[in-house]
């Protein structure tokens, strides 16, 4: 039986999404969800009821309806606000998806899209969002408030867009869901990963596939996150220390997730309209099928990165490509190092650049420079598990 706390945390986005369907106002929906939680705290016994999420949703929507009826201004709008008959108020599986499309509406700036999605759909707190967006808490709080005001004032609708608008709206949603996954893959404040957040992002990717089963990019995003999730538990050792891909126990990778991820990645890559997530999923797939780090098909991974770079030029991708190239047997490490250094101006402040640089320098036997590069990476890295790893590598070199 899950703890009451867990029920609240898991239910929150579902309750807000189902309530906003009624209120069309995010603040009001959040208020009502909060009040429902408070009522639950007063009335639930020590263990939550069978369907805690349903209970909270029904309660929050009842509170919303009461408030809407009480409020004289809203009363006049009520006929417009109330859902068409047949809405039984149960949380619909697609509610979170409507909320994502609202949060990632093109009328909102990308940073606002990300902040709103993380806060409202994924339940991430403002401090953690600030860290993801590399900005202050007050700025994030302000951004979220402004964005909610705009949604209400400009009437950004709570719905999944109609078919003819979907393609234009899809990329922002995929990007935001992927960012949410990334924020859970390596958290800012530790531990290494937040499985609840990666799980939520995976659910959203699955909902997008359900919405657009014939589109390649949602398939690809789902493939990418499944293939990454498959490795999740092996990314740290029993002491909570970081274990990188070369040392991970591949026998513990989740075979079911890999099977599904590979099938979806294959479908996506074969599609004529494949995009950047298809190539990223393909890379993840090549790692997933490799029996070991040494037996990985590095040449194929480099080729896949080339395809990704062609469709989506990005210095982060170029860095990953360089790192993969350094693993191809007989690689010219000096050339790889020059490639990495050439990316430095575009990736200032990106911790994985000095970390990749340090790795290549160490393999070249340039120990002092490698230790210095790990030092730079340490300054830029916030996750404590990654920090411990970098410090350990640095100490090994100096010793």
């Amino acid at each position, binding site marked *: 039986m899950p703890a009451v706390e867990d029920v609240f945390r898991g239910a929150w986005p579902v309750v807000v999404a189902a309530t906003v369907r009624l209120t069309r106002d995010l603040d009001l929906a959040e208020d009502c969800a909060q009040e429902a939680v408070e009522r639950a705290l007063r009335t639930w016994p020590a263990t939550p009821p069978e369907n805690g999420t349903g209970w909270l949703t029904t309660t929050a929507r009842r509170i919303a309806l009461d408030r809407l009826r009480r409020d*004289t*201004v809203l009363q*006049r*709008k009520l006929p*417009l606000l109330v859902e068409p008959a047949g809405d039984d108020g149960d949380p619909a599986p697609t509610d979170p998806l409507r909320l994502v499309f609202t949060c990632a*509406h093109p*009328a909102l700036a990308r940073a606002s899209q990300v902040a709103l999605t993380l806060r409202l759909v994924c339940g991430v707190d403002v401090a953690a969002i600030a860290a993801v967006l590399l900005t202050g808490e007050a700025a994030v709080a302000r951004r979220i408030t402004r964005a909610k005001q705009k949604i209400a*004032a*400009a*009437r*950004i*609708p709570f719905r999944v*867009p109609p078919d003819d*608008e979907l393609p234009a709206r899809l990329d922002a949603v995929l990007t935001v869901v992927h960012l949410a996954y990334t924020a859970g893959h390596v958290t800012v404040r530790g531990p290494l990963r937040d499985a609840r957040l990666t799980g939520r992002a995976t659910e959203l990717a699955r909902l997008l596939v359900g919405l657009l089963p014939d589109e390649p990019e949602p398939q690809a995003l789902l493939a990418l996150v499944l293939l990454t999730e498959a490795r999740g538990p092996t990314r740290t050792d029993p002491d909570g220390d970081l274990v990188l891909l070369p040392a991970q126990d591949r026998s513990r990778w989740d075979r079911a997730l890999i099977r599904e991820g590979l099938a979806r990645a294959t479908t996506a890559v074969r599609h004529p309209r494949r995009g950047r997530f298809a190539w990223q999923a393909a890379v993840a797939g090549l790692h997933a099928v490799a029996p070991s780090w040494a037996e990985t098909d590095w040449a194929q991974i480099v080729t896949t990165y080339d395809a990704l770079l062609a469709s989506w030029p990005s210095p982060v991708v170029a860095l990953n490509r360089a790192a993969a190239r350094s693993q191809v047997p007989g690689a010219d490490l000096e050339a790889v190092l020059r490639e990495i250094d050439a990316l430095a101006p575009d990736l200032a402040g990106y911790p994985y650049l000095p970390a990749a640089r340090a790795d290549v320098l160490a393999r070249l036997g340039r120990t002092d420079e490698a230790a210095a590069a790990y030092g730079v990476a340490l300054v830029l890295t916030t996750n404590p598990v990654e920090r411990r790893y970098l410090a350990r590598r640095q100490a090994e070199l100096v010793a």
Partner: protein
Amino acid sequence: MARYVFLMYDSEDWYDTADEQGVADEFRLHEEFMAAVAAAGAEVVGGEALERSSAATTVRGGGSEPLVTDGPFADTKEALGGFYVIEAPDLDVALRLARACPAGNVEVRPVMEMPDTA
């Protein structure tokens, strides 16, 4: 339904270069736009075309005495040339209509809803 003001910003060359035919074409475009609004289940509830920005006078407040200056509030390459007030079900419909609006740039601004006029 919600009301939006469409603020149309454009280069002002048109005022100099448009001949009779140019003006007639412009009117036709706006008639087509108004037809598109109606077809989308929205409504044009107001709007005007404006004289060029050099015909504007700005009264600047803030100081002890308002300052009267020749010209628009903000001197920009693309100037406010006209506006519509459109009633539409939501922002998605409004943005679709803004794309069909015959102007170089359209700022879509929601009208503040007053409790007494709702």
